[in-house]
């Protein structure tokens, strides 16, 4: 486990370094636009150019720049957004919690449904219910999120008018009790989270079903049955407990996919997460912001993997002795 933690730190360093190097490896330098006579930002005065370079620290040796960058990044200073002229760290702090709320809710719901459904389907392999669930999960995981999101919006938002159409909370609302606040947040969360859950649940269901089917064929399951244990104990205590181990790793690997899915869904539902921020910064080539998002997403995925390693280490005693 120590090795895993060390690996996490090394990966983190690699991500930050890559983030530092990438723009500097591009043709020209970050001030290239200032040198281009065709650019609107063209600066013909070389003194101004030099002072700009000095302002951004670009005249210093690369090693010095790197050290400053790392020190800043570790303190949460990810630079300044060019388009919004705001610190990147501040922007992320405002939008990231929304994205995390959406992603974690959907991941949680999809995991719960996938695990319970997958275990039950595997137990009744070949039954009509199993076949229907497999077909449904294949369709759900292959439908584009924009499409499923639209349908949900039209049906539950527009036609039935049960749920709000957009946003993360009711604009300008004032809540009397925390309970009212929670209800309002939850109502806005339901549709985007449902869309993302639908996109995620299929692969989780199929994975759990498959690994459960594998486990059900193991000798120890036969022995457990021969021991006269109850069905519930066989299913949960022995079969699912073993089938869950590969699922944990899948969950971590799927975290990145869930995050990107969330970004799409956020733009669709006008959810106040990072989605809009990312798309607009890409359009405006707001490099500091894009890099900031890149770092944050990388750290989240790395953390998810570290967490998965730790979890499977807890779940499977065999891993505890692996070098």
């Amino acid at each position, binding site marked *: 486990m120590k090795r895993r933690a060390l690996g996490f730190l090394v990966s983190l360093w690699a991500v930050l370094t890559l983030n530092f190097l990438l723009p500097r490896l591009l043709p020209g330098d970050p001030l290239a636009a200032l040198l281009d006579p065709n650019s609107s930002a063209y600066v013909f005065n070389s003194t101004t150019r030099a002072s700009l370079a000095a302002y951004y620290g670009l005249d210093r040796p690369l090693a010095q720049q790197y050290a400053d960058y790392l020190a800043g990044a570790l303190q949460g200073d990810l630079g300044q957004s060019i388009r919004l002229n705001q610190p990147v760290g501040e922007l992320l702090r405002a939008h990231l919690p929304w994205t995390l709320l959406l992603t974690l809710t959907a991941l949680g719901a999809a995991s719960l449904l996938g695990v319970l459904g997958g275990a039950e389907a595997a137990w009744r392999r070949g039954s009509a219910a199993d076949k229907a669930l497999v077909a449904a999960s294949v369709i759900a995981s292959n439908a584009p999120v924009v499409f499923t999101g639209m349908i949900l919006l039209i049906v539950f938002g527009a036609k039935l008018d049960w749920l709000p159409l957009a946003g993360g909370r009711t604009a300008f609302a004032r809540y009397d009790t925390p309970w009212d606040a929670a209800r309002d947040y939850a109502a806005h969360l339901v549709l985007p989270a449902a869309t993302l859950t639908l996109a995620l649940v299929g692969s989780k269901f199929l994975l759990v079903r498959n690994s459960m089917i594998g486990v059900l064929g193991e*000798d120890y399951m036969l*022995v457990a*049955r*021969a*021991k*006269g*244990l109850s069905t519930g*104990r066989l299913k949960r205590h022995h079969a699912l*407990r073993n089938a869950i181990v590969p699922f944990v790793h899948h969950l971590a690997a799927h975290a990145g996919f869930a995050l990107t899915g969330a970004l799409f869904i956020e733009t669709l539902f006008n959810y106040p997460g990072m989605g809009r921020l990312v798309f607009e910064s890409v359009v405006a080539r707001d490099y500091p912001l894009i890099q900031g998002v890149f770092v944050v997403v990388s750290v989240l995925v790395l953390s998810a993997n570290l967490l998965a390693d730790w979890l499977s280490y807890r779940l499977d005693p*065999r891993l505890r002795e692996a070098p």
Partner: protein
Amino acid sequence: MSGPLLSVQDLRVTFAPGAPGQPPARAVDGVSFALAAGGSLAIVGETGSGKTTLARALLGLHPAGSVSGSVQLGGQELVELDEGRWRPLRWKRIALAVQNAGTAFDPVYRMGEQIVEPLREHLGLSSAEAAARAAALVAQVGLAERHLRAYPHQLSGGEKQRLMLAMALSCEPEILIVDEPTSGQDMLARAQVIALLRHIRAQRGTALLLISHDLAAVAQLAEQVAVLYAGKLAEVGAARDVLSAPRHPYTWGLLNAYPNMSTARDLSGIRGQMPDPAHPPTGCRFHPRCTQAVDKCRRVEPPLQAHGGRLLACHLGGLQALLRADGLRKTFTTNGHLGPAQNIEAVRDVSLEVYEGEVVGLVGETGSGKSTLGRLLVGLLSPEAGSIAFEGNPLALNNSSASKRLRRRIQLIPQDPFDSVSPYLSVGQIVREPLDVQGTDTPVKRAEQVQDALAAVGLPTLDAFLARHPHELSGGQLQRVVIARALVLEPKLIVADEPVSMLDASEQAKLITLLKAIQNERGIGLLLISHDLALVRKVADRILVMRDGQIIEGGPSSRVIAQPQHDYTRALLRAAPSFDWYSASSNGDRP
């Protein structure tokens, strides 16, 4: 209790076909047996014979609808019980120690938790009581409490095997089914498991159903043996009888393939393969691999019938005596040129039998009458008294066609190959001669048979080789030609009189291995006449010792070698070549 504890009647386990349109696989096909309270029964057979399927059926572990017939435990019918009714029976009344203990434990729980599980489930013990019981159980199988705290992957195969037994015994079942308790274990661990099982039976009176292909373990653990082949019982009887004197050809083959310390004979597998359970052969399931199968075996399935104190499923009543000689006697009279005419009794009242597929060694010093006996048996000499029957038909020394037909099935390989072939004939002619004499097939067919026979003994079949003459061949090659000549008539019995004594040790080893391989493949009975006890014991199932025209001792090779009854046999054994200079230097005598 009246009646057996476990009674199995016409049990069938049929698995749904792998692909639609295929016939279902009949893994167990009409098996009946009974197990008394406290009794012990071993079910033996090759891998794939249905042993494990049978064991699982007794615990109701197969999918619903795949098992039919009747399994009664103390009068209660178990087949068709639903899962809910099976549960209280499992482990509490019938427990199963499965074959692969290595994978039989859930990898994510400690051993203790897994052993405790059935105790809490069936006996309703508190966790403290169950833990105490588990500690007592591991102590009983010779392990410590630390083994209870270990995870499965932290233990060796032998330790898991013992814990499997401890777990199987946890609820003190009336019947313990043990599936291959000794397979894959080293000899010491194996001996410990056997001792443990014996101890458990003695202490608790648990009825034991042993599933094994380890015949030595079976001999030590079971009173009764049932031999299973392709889902059907072939032979059932007392373990001592069945294992020491097998009657079914399959049992006989199993024993031949089994390595043990009580015989020095080389191993020989059973020819052919176990049939596919989805496409069992018609008639007797063993007939494609059986060397004595007759037409009826191909058509009619033999029932399991009482036969001399055991149950046997064989139309022919088990292994056939290929050759049976009774009270043979042969006296030669010297011509009296060098003194008064004398009667020399070369063979005196000899009776012997050679069974189907059996190698019998006939040993004795020069002049003991071995070769004369061999010649009597193949009909080159006629006895003064006694009778010879081949496959139940009397063998008369005349030229009737019936006698000729029988005779071609017994062939002699003589001692000196140079003596027994005409120097004027080519190899092709030598091998073809018996066919020409018998005059059965077309010349083209005969040429093919000659080629086959030469190929069988590992000789070239080129025309250039067929045209060679005896003086152009080495001793080993010529002896192979002679063997090919014997084989060309497809005999059932070969009498080989010192077939390799003229050859050097390396060529001897090659030829005797070849002879054994041909014998095993074709199921030929072989009477191997030799003075070389060291050689004979490598191939013979039984050894007969001959002296002064009489057979003075006979029995299984292992017994004759290990516990010779007769002084003469002991003398022969002492004289047999040996590199055993350790004992020779200490007392100059072999134990």
